[in-house]
Structure formats: C-alpha cells, structure tokens
C-alpha cells in the first residue's frame, strides 16, 4: 500500500465522456428499441383494433344475415328492415349488442311466429334478466320453451312463478305477470353507472362495427382485386403510418427539459413546456412554432455572434502578428541600411584622412630635410642615423627599434670595441654582499647609540635624582627602573622597610684613623660575614650595605 499526497491534480474527463457517450448510446439504443417495440405494439394494436372492428362488423353482418335468412324462410322477409332497426334501437336502449340480440330475437320469433311478439318478449326478457340474476339467454330460452308448453324453465328462473301458476295460466298471462314484476328494471339498471358503462361499451362496439365496415370498404377499394392478403397489408401500412405520428408526438413529451437546458437546446424545452400544457400545445401550434423558431434563432444568433467575435479576434491577432512581423522586418532592414551607411561613411572618412595625411606629408619640413639629407653623400652610419630620425618623426616604432640596434652595432664596429666587449667575461658584481655588510654596520651603530643613551641616562640620574622626581626619572630610564625593581624585590623579600632618614656619625678611634681604615674595616667585616654564611647585599640607591 502506497500512501500518496497529490500536490497538483487535474481533472480528466475522458472516462466520464466515454461513460456519457456509452450512456447516450445506450439511451439511443433503448429509445430506438422502445420506438421499434412501441411501433410494433402500436401497429399490432391498430391491426388488432382494425381486426376487431372488422370482426364486429362481420359478426353483426352474420347475425343480420341469419335473421334475414330466417325471416325470408318464414315468409316475413319484408319485416327484416323493421326488425333490424328495432333490434338496433333496442340494443342502444338496453346496452346489449345487436349481434347478441339478433339470435335471441330469432329464437323468440321462431317460437312465437310474430315479429312484434318476439320484439315485445325480447323487451320483457331484458327486463327480467336485468331485474333478476338470470342471463338474458336463459330467460329467452325459458320464454321460448314456455311458448312450446314447457314451463319448467320458467319456474327455474326463480322469478315468482310457481308450478301451479304456470300450469294454470297461458303465456299471455305469464307475460303480463313478468311485465308487472320486472317492468322498468332495464331502465332502472341503465340509470346506474354500470348500466351506463354497458351502454357506452355497446355503443363502442357499434362504433367498431361502423369502423370495421368502413375499413372493409376502404381496404377493398385500396387493394382492388388483391384479396384478403392485400387488405391485411393495407391495414398494416395504415397502422404504421398512424403509429409513427403517435410515436413522434410521444418522443417530444418524453424528453427531459432540464437535460436539454444543460445542453443548450432551449427550443426543445419550449416544446416540452408547451407539450406539458396538453391540448393547449395543439391549439397553440403557431405560437409554439414561433417560440421554437425564436429560440433557434437566438441560439443561431448567439453562435453566429460568438463565431464572428472569434473570427474578429483571430483576424485581429493575425493582423497584429503580421504588423509585428512587418515591423520586425522594417527594423531589420533599417538596421542593415544604417550599418551599411555607417560603414560607407567610415570608409569615406578613412579615405579622406589618408588623402589629408598624404597632402600634409608634402609640407612636413622635418621629413623633407631628412629626405634631402639622405639624398646627399652620407656614410652608412649617418644613413642609419637619418633613417632612425625619419622613423622617429613618422612614429614608426618597429622600424625605429630595428634601426637603433643597427646603429648601435655600426657604432661599435666603427670603434672595433664591439668584438672586444663581446669577448669580455661577465663582470663580477662589486656590490654583492653589500647589503649584509650594511646591515651589520647599522646594527653596530644602533648598539653604540643605545650605549651612549644609557650613559647619558645614568648621568642624568646621578645628577638630578631626588625623592620627588625619582619615579619620573625611573620611568624615563628603563634600565635603572629594572634595577630599582630588582632591589625593591630583594628588600621586600628581606623585610626591609623605609626607615626614614638615617644619620651615621663615625668617630675615628682605635685603628681606624682615616677613611681608608674605615673602608678596610668594613671590607673585612663583610668578608667575615660572607665566610660565616651571612651574605651581604648592597643597596645602591640607599647607599648602604646590609
């Protein structure tokens, strides 16, 4: 595990971009898939709807054909339009599909043999069915059987008809009883929500029948003589066309406004805002279109302005750069031109100076005189001298040096000394060792001077020393000061103190009769003391022996 502290980082969006791209692709794929699935499902639904509509129409047609055939077979073909219209009317009022009613009507018609009776009994059956929990088909079946003398089924309906009543009354009475019991049941049922839904459903089925009828007619016209296969294709194409419109509309309202806003596609947001208003979107198409166009125009304008600005900036930068290059070029050219001009001027000045020098040299009298002298008959030595003089006048150093050497050699050769001098051995330096000798002399002189100074100082001390100026005199006489300090040290060591003034009176007596005798006595005393081990010391400054 490595622990790291990043000092500087940067964000790399490559992965994020890839992820976003993948998600977008996935979204696009999903959308396409959804679109395809939706399209297929929608087509299927439309095809199914068309098929149901056609089926409804075909079933209705079949029932109608059956009724028509029944009436035709029973000699009441002319009653078919009224019967069909009555059944359709009854279907609308009762909320029961006419293709369901027609078979029941046919059954009752076959049982009663009368269109009117059958229609009335069908009404009664509907009321009984709605008023009880019996199916309409069961009630119709019971009524039909009752007309045939079989009242058992009527008894099984549990509608208040017992066996005795059924056995003692005919169908007219039974009908009256049922009407009395269940009249208005259907109307009451239809007032309910379920009844209304049933009516609407029935009406929808009727509508499908109508659509189916229209579709069949339309597809028949569209496909011509291609049969049922061509009709199916025509239905599918119709479904695809209709579905594409629906899907495109749905795609609009499925887009996320916030996401589009982030992408700068404001006009799509406008679409979505408008689409959120539902029907207002459809009603406000013109307004929306204007808004969309406005957004697009704004976006385009912004882009255009930015592009213009960028182009202008770039043009300005290019212009500045070109101007900079031109300026640099101009500066370079001017510099080169100035350098060339300066070189030409310098060349011209040098040429002029040379000319002036040449002209000036004409009037150089010294050179003229030397040249004139050289024209005369001169010796080699004189010629060299004149040439050297000329070189000096012309400030030609190298030539002057060469000529000077030649002149010197010439002079030596002239006096025959050059060769002799050349052959002489190298002369010894007479001053070798002088420095050492001089140093010794100076040292001795210094020593003598010091001795003389010491003698002078001793004389001064002897002449002028007093207790008052002793310190000053000692300070100026370093040798005496050393002596004094040595004596003082000895005195301090021996414990000698200042005894003040000491007067000694010597009376000549005995063998000491003169100063010489006294000196002898003292010398002998000192010698004796020394011999006895008592050293004597001399206090020179005090003038005493101790």
């Amino acid at each position, binding site marked *: 595990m490595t*622990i*790291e*502290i*990043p*000092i*500087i980082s*940067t*964000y790399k969006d490559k992965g994020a971009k890839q992820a976003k791209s993948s998600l977008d692709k996935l979204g696009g794929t999903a959308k396409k898939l959804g679109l395809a699935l939706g399209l297929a499902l929608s087509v299927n639904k439309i095809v199914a709807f068309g098929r149901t509509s056609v089926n409804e129409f075909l079933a209705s047609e079949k029932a109608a054909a059956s009724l028509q055939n029944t009436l035709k077979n029973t000699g009441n073909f002319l009653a078919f339009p009224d019967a069909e219209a009555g059944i359709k009317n009854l279907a609308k009022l009762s909320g029961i599909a006419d293709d369901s009613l027609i078979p029941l009507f046919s059954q009752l018609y076959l049982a009663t043999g009368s269109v009117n009776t059958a229609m009335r009994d069908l009404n009664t059956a509907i009321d009984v069915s709605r008023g009880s929990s019996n199916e309409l088909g069961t009630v119709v079946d019971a009524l039909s059987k009752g007309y045939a003398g079989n009242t058992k089924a009527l008894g099984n309906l549990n509608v208040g008809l017992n066996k005795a009543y059924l056995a003692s009354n005919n169908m007219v009475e039974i009908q009256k009883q049922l009407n009395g019991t269940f009249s208005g049941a259907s109307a009451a049922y239809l007032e309910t929500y379920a009844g209304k839904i049933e009516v609407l459903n029935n009406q929808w089925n009727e509508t499908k029948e109508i659509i189916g009828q229209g579709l069949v007619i339309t597809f028949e016209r569209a496909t011509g003589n291609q049969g049922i296969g061509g009709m199916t294709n025509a239905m599918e194409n119709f479904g695809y066309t209709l579905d594409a419109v629906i899907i495109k509309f749905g795609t609009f309202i499925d887009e996320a406004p916030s996401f589009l806003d982030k992408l700068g596609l404001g006009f799509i947001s406008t679409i979505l805002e408008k689409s959120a208003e539902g029907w207002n979107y459809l009603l406000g198409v013109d307004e929306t279109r204007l808004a969309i166009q406005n957004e697009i125009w704004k976006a385009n304008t912004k882009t255009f302005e930015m592009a213009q600005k960028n182009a202008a900036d770039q043009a300005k930068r290019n212009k500045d750069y070109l101007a900079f290059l031109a300026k640099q070029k101009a500066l370079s050219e001017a510099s080169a031109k100035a350098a060339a001009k300066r070189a030409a001027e310098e060349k011209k000045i040098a040429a002029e100076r040379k000319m002036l020098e040449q002209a000036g040299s004409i009037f150089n009298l010294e050179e003229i005189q030397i040249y004139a002298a050289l024209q005369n008959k001169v010796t080699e030595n004189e010629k060299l001298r004149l040439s050297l003089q000329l070189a000096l006048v012309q400030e030609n150093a190298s030539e002057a040096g060469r000529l000077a050497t030649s002149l010197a050699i010439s002079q030596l050769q002239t006096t025959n000394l050059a060769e002799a001098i050349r052959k002489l051995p190298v002369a010894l330096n007479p001053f070798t060792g002088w420095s050492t000798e001089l140093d010794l002399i100076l040292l001795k002189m210094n020593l003598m001077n010091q001795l003389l100074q010491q003698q002078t100082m001793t004389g001064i001390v002897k002449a002028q020393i007093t207790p008052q100026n002793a310190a000053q005199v000692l300070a100026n006489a370093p040798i005496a000061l050393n002596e004094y300090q040595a004596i003082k040290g000895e005195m301090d060591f021996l414990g000698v103190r200042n005894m003040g003034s000491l007067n000694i009176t010597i009376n000549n007596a005995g063998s000491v009769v003169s100063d010489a005798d006294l000196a002898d006595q003292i010398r002998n005393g000192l010698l004796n003391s020394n011999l006895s081990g008592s050293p004597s010391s001399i206090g020179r400054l005090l003038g005493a022996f101790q």
Partner: protein
Amino acid sequence: MPVEVKGLVETQRALKQLAPDLYKEMNKEIRIALKVVVKDAQSKVTPNVIGLFNWQDKGQPVVSRTKAKTMMAPNLRAFPKYNPNVIRKGLTYSLARGRRNSAGFISFYRLLNKSAAGAIIETAGRKNFNGDPKSQSNNKNAGAHFNRSIQGTYGGFKSIGNRPQDRGRLLYAAYARDEGRVTDAVFKAISKAEITFRKRLGLAA
C-alpha cells in the same frame, strides 16, 4: 490538499516539445521543493518504536502466521517489520503522472510513503485508535497498545484536510508542517516556466 489546475497537461507537453530546457529547469525546481517535505519526513523516522521491541526488524525472515500460501495466493506477505532504513527509503516523491482515480483526477506531483511499515506508522489507529470494538482477538488490547506505542514515539496525527483519512503521522505531518510552501513553490516553478516560455515565443506573459 491537492490543488486542481487546468491546462497543465498542455503546458507540460508544450514545454517538453518546444522548450526541453525549460521543462528540465521546471522539474528541477519542483524536485527541490518536494525534497524539502520528504527530507523533513525522513528526519522524523526513529530507530525504533518504544514499547514495540518485537516489531523491530532483526534481519530474520518473516513468515505470515495467519495465512498460508495457496495456489491462488502464493505470495502472501507477513506483517511487515519496523525497519527505519526501509521506511526512510520509502519516503519519496514522484513527478510522473499518476493514474486517474475514481473521481476522475490525475495527480502530477506526488509525495509518497511507499513502504508498508511506513504506511502503518502513517495511519495506524486512524480509524480505531483504541482498538477495533468488534475485535474477536484473544488480546483485544493489542491494537490499542500498538497504536499508543506508535503515538508515543511519533506523536499524534497531523491533518492536511477535513476528512478523517487526511490525517497521518509521518508524511502527512511533514506536509502539514510545510504549511503549503511546497505547493506554492511548485506553482511558482510552473508559472515561471510558462512565463519564460511565453516570452521566448514573443507572446504576452
């Protein structure tokens, strides 16, 4: 904490291609700045951890006591021993571009604590200083003892950010003590190279 900059990749690329001398000079200055922190961290590595005698590397081979080698994991490492030389060697820096992390960021200049023992010194006890409360060990106080010993030798955590994981004892502490000077120096080096490069191209700085 790391500072995000934009355009450094392009700057580096331009310098590397068009002004390699400036690029080298910039890297040289950055190395000097990074070395300051690394040297500071290295100077804090102690010869041993007081109270953890058995953790000290005595030169003997270490074998994992809790895991066995298997076919799937033949190179299982034991718990690393404390070796100050290894830790010091692991404290280094890098100017190589790092890998993109989960948040999408790439680091250019990094301070590194590469050694395992160094990482332990750096982070031990950062999550549960007093030991894992859910520890199933027979010696539940071992973790706390370990952390306290390291804390006693190296001192407490120093923080370089607001997150709990922005704390450490060695490299993090050195970086915290540096107080952002290294970042400033790195920025200055980059800025200097860029300005010089621009001047060289004749562009406005």
